[in-house]
C-alpha cells in the first residue's frame, strides 16, 4: 500500500476519483463488524482499475457503443482474477493461474451450417472486419454475483447477415476450443467437453449481443475467453461462451453445456430472472463485486426494455 505514494506512479495505478469518493461506502454497516470479521476494511485499499500495459491496445477500443451503463466499473484485477472458465479449472482463481497455457494464435473461427456463405475466418481478419467499440455491460453470474465490465467488440448481428443465413437457420450453436493439453480442465469430467452454447436466431441478432475481443481497451486476457467470446448481457454469465472456434447455424435447439450437466437447474434460455430461483442460489439478489451489501437483481439483468419483447407470450418460469 505505501508504494502507491511514489512520485513516479503511473496514471493507470491511480484510483479514479469516483471510486475514491465512494471509499467510505465500503465501510458502511457496523453490523458486519459485530461478526468479528471486518470485511468492510478490505474496501479501503485502492484498487487497480486500468489494465496492465502488457496486453496490446485495440484500435478504436474506447469508442463508446450503445447500451453502456454509467455504473462504476469492476476493477480490471477482479474481472481477470475472479471468474468461471472450467476449461482452465473450477476455482475462481484457476483461470488466471492457468491462462498462459491456452494458445490463441493461430486461431480460426468456422462459420457453418444453414448459411449461404460458410467460411473459416482467421481471428485477426475477424477482429479487423468490423469497427470495434466499447460496451460497458453488467454481467450477472448464476452464482448470484455480478460485475460491470467494459468489453471491446462488435455486434454479432451484422456478421450473421454477411453470412446469409438460410430460412432453416433458427438457432446459432457455439463451440469452445477443445485442447486438453492447453486447458487442463478438459482433462477432468467437470463438464462434457467441448463447451457448447446456443442462442435463438433473434437473440443472436439482437443489437445487445456482441462478440468481445477485448477488455478495458486492450486485448482480451486468456482467462476471460480470448481471443473471441460471446457476450449476452441479459442472460446468466455461462451463456456467454468463451474462446469460440465454431459457430454453426441450425434448425433445432442445440444442446448447451450446463443444461446437459443439470437440466433441472440450467435451462436453454437462462435469462436473468429474479423470480425463478435456482436450487443453490436465490436469484432475487446479487453481490456486485466490490460491494458489501447485496443488491436487488433486475429482470433480464436490467435490459428488459431492450429484450423483454423477444419472449412475449412465453412462460419464462417454464422456459427458464
Amino acid at each position: 500500500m505505501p508504494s502507491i505514494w511514489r512520485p513516479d506512479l503511473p496514471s493507470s495505478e491511480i484510483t479514479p476519483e469516483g471510486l475514491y469518493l465512494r471509499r467510505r461506502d465500503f465501510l458502511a454497516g457496523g453490523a458486519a463488524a459485530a461478526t468479528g470479521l471486518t470485511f468492510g476494511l478490505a474496501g479501503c485499499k485502492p484498487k487497480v482499475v486500468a489494465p496492465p500495459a502488457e496486453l496490446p491496445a485495440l484500435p478504436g477500443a474506447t469508442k463508446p457503443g450503445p447500451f453502456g451503463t454509467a455504473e462504476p466499473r469492476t476493477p480490471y484485477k477482479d474481472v481477470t482474477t475472479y471468474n468461471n472458465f472450467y476449461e482452465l479449472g473450477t476455482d475462481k482463481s484457476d483461470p488466471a493461474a492457468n491462462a498462459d497455457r491456452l494458445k490463441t494464435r493461430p486461431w480460426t473461427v468456422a462459420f457453418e451450417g444453414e448459411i449461404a456463405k460458410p467460411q473459416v475466418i482467421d481471428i485477426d481478419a475477424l477482429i479487423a472486419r468490423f469497427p470495434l467499440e466499447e460496451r460497458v455491460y453488467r454481467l450477472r453470474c448464476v452464482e448470484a454475483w455480478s460485475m460491470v465490465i467494459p468489453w471491446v467488440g462488435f455486434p454479432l448481428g451484422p456478421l450473421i447477415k454477411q453470412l446469409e443465413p438460410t430460412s432453416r437457420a433458427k438457432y446459432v450453436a457455439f463451440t469452445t476450443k477443445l485442447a486438453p493439453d492447453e486447458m487442463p480442465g478438459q482433462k477432468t469430467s467437470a463438464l462434457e467437453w467441448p463447451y457448447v452454447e446456443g442462442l435463438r436466431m433473434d437473440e443472436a441478432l439482437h443489437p445487445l449481443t456482441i462478440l468481445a475481443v477485448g477488455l478495458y481497451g486492450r486485448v482480451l486476457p486468456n482467462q476471460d475467453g480470448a481471443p473471441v467470446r460471446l457476450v449476452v448481457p441479459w442472460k446468466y454469465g455461462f451463456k456467454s461462451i468463451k474462446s469460440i472456434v465454431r459457430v454453426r447455424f441450425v434448425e433445432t435447439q442445440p444442446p448447451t453445456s450446463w443444461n446437459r450437466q443439470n437440466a433441472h437447474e440450467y435451462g436453454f434460455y437462462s435469462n436473468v430472472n429474479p423470480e425463478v430461483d435456482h436450487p443453490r442460489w436465490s436469484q432475487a439478489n446479487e453481490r456486485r463485486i466490490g460491494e458489501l451489501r447485496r443488491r436487488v437483481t433486475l429482470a433480464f439483468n436490467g435490459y428488459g426494455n431492450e429484450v423483454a419483447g423477444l419472449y412475449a407470450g412465453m412462460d419464462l418460469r417454464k422456459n427458464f
Partner: protein
Amino acid sequence: MAARRQWLSRLAKVAIGALAMVPAARIGWLAWAGQLGANPIAEAMNRLGFWTLTLLLATLAPTPIQVVTGWKWPLRLRRMLGLETFLYVCLHFAVYLGVDQFFDLPAIGKDIVKRKFITVGFAAFLLLIPLALTSTDGMVRRLGFARWKRLHRLVYLVAGLGVVHFVWRVKSDLRQPLLFAAALAALLVIRVLKTWRPPHASRPARSAPATSAPRA
C-alpha cells in the same frame, strides 16, 4: 517415565489445539488486509466451511487411530477438537448471517427452506449446539455417561449432513467434497470393524453361533 509421557501428551494437545486455530487467524488476517480476492465474503465462508469439515473429521479420528495404531493419547483431544469445530461452524454461520445476508431474516428463512444444501447445513449447525453445550465434565455427570454418550452419537449425523452440505453446494466438480465423503466413510468403517470384533477375542467364538450373545 509416565510423567514424561503425560507431559508429552499435554504438549501435543496444546500444539494441536493451537494449530487448529491457525486457519481462522489467517482468514481473519487476510480479510482485514483485503487479500481474500474479488469476493472476500464468499471466500471467507468457503474457507471456514472447509476447515469446519476438516476439524469435524479430525474430531472423529482418534478412535479409528486407536483401533489402527493402538495410540490412546489422541482420545484426549476429542473435546478440544469438537469445540474448535463448533467455533469454526459459528464463524461460518456468522459470516453468512451477518455479512453475506446482512441479517436479512426473511431471505435466510427462504434459503433454509428452499435451498437443500442450506437446509442440511443449518440442521448440522443446530445439532452441534447441544453437543457443545454438554461438553463439560459437569454436564457429563449431570446427564449420566450412558445418556451423554447416546446424545453425542449425534456427531455422526452431523458429519454426514456436513459432507452432504458440501456435496450439494458445488455445481459440478465434486472432487473435493467426495474426498471428505471418502475420509468420513473410512473413519466410520474402521469404527464399525472395531465394534464387530468379538468381545472376547482370545477364543475364535465367531464360528460357534451358540456362544455369540444376541446384540441389543
